[in-house]
């Protein structure tokens, strides 16, 4: 017995207009500081049903700590929204999920957001996700990542009840995504695909989405990097990234995210850049646990980037995307890395990805993978 969970997904050009058909009276729009200077939040606000009231919470930073996520909770409670609308990337989506939960259940702690606690949400409001990046998949997942000030740790929260009710995948909202974010979020999508496909909890539903997401992302991302305003290519990568989100949300992450979360939390490396460092190394580590599956994914990779093994192909794609290929190349000093290695191993070992990775691993394996990814020589 297992589940497949998904929001209602509206995709393709003009899909933002669907928002006007939702029964929204009062919307709390959650967005980030960078987007606040663009027209995107306003586009979403204009798409709300006629007469709908709204407030905009727009000072969310990248990977915000809990105190920043919840700074406006009192203001939101006074406003009494019937919908939360996340407009942005993964950090905004995760913030919207957490605010949605704490608004509905002020008696709960964020740490109650686990699949083992009945939250009893949706008594007062619902959750709409409008991603403006293509990669985190958060609009389609029941996971949220939480940082706590001073902890240098990312907490992995998850509950089926924080899965958005509706996700809008409008390619017009991602055509202006800067190159660095395009690269990082696409790397994250590739990691989701590969982790979902190898997961110990994989299933036919997650497999189907992982296979299609590998096709859509790997076969179109280079086109997007070369021609960032190409709406059709953006649309394919955008859908592929959400499919990767559906894939891992319904089968779980693995060691790439266990290592990436630890590394990102410690060195403030953007999430997509961090997971890209580990992806080929973890695939190589896992290979003997699921060779047929990795070989099958590898056959989907475009011929010009395809290597003998999936790990080679991923390395080729990430390198061609211009992604940093080692911790050194990502700008982390050797002494800084080595002095943090023990805590990196400790943090990674506490990730839920440890139990769903296709191959069992212990502290020594994690240490080796950290060192490999840090010292990798660009070929």
């Amino acid at each position, binding site marked *: 017995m*297992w589940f497949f969970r998904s929001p209602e997904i509206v995709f393709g050009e003009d899909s933002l207009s669907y928002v006007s058909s939702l029964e929204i009276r009062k919307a709390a729009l959650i967005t980030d500081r960078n987007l606040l200077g663009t027209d995107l939040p306003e586009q979403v606000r204009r798409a709300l049903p006629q007469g709908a009231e709204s407030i905009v919470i727009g000072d969310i930073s990248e990977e915000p700590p809990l105190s920043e996520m919840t700074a406006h909770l009192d203001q939101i409670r006074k406003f009494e929204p019937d919908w939360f609308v996340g407009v942005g990337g993964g950090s905004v989506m995760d913030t919207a999920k957490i605010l949605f939960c704490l608004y509905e259940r002020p008696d709960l702690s964020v*740490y109650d957001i686990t699949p083992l606690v009945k939250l009893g949400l949706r008594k007062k409001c619902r959750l709409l996700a409008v991603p403006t990046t293509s990669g985190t998949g958060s609009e389609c997942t029941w996971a949220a990542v939480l940082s706590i000030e001073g902890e240098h740790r990312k907490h992995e929260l998850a509950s089926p009840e924080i899965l958005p009710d509706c996700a809008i995948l409008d390619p017009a909202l991602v055509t202006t995504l800067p190159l660095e974010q395009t690269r990082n979020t696409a790397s994250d999508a590739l990691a989701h695909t590969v982790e979902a496909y190898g997961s110990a909890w994989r299933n036919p539903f997650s497999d189907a989405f992982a296979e299609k997401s590998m096709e859509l992302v790997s076969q179109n991302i280079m086109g997007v990097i070369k021609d960032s305003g190409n709406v059709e290519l953006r649309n394919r990568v955008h859908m592929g990234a959400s499919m990767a989100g559906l894939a891992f949300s319904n089968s779980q992450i693995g060691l790439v995210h266990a290592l990436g979360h630890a590394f990102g939390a410690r060195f403030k490396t953007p999430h997509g850049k961090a997971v890209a460092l580990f992806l080929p190394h973890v695939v190589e580590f896992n290979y003997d646990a699921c060779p047929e599956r990795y070989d099958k994914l590898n056959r989907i990779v475009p011929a010009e980037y395809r290597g003998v093994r999936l790990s080679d192909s991923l390395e080729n794609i990430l390198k061609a995307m211009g992604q940093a290929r080692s911790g050194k190349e990502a700008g982390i000093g050797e002494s800084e890395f080595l002095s943090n290695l023990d805590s990196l191993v400790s943090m990674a070992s506490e990730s839920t990805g440890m139990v769903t990775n296709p191959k069992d691993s212990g502290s020594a394996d994690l240490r080796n993978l950290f060192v490999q990814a840090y010292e990798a020589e660009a070929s």
Partner: protein
Amino acid sequence: MVKFPSEEWVKEYMAKLNSNAVYEDAAKNWEGAMTFVVHKDAAFDRDAFIYLDLYHGKCRDARFSLTESDFPVPEYKYSGPYTNWRRLINKEIDPIQGLLTGKFKLQGSMMKVMRFTKAAKEMVNTTAMVQTEF
């Protein structure tokens, strides 16, 4: 072969857990007792309790009783009907998926336990190392 649940099974389980290096590594920072609760069902006619005192990757004490009040209050309880325990020990149910699908229940601080999922899984995997009869 030892019968599940019983004092003999618990002692055998404790020995297996204490020789499991994977568990020791995953639970090296864990402090706290756990009780396995076996609820009666059509295949087993009474509740049974297994108390485990767990500390830094080792099991310091393990006891069996048919009366829960024989033990100190544990930090966690992992409970399910006897038939699901049999399926778990036979590796027909994944311990974490068992929780997510309602076949087992976990009581205790979620914040702490979510950082030790690998240790929890290995604890359950160790049950399969005991030559068990039902």
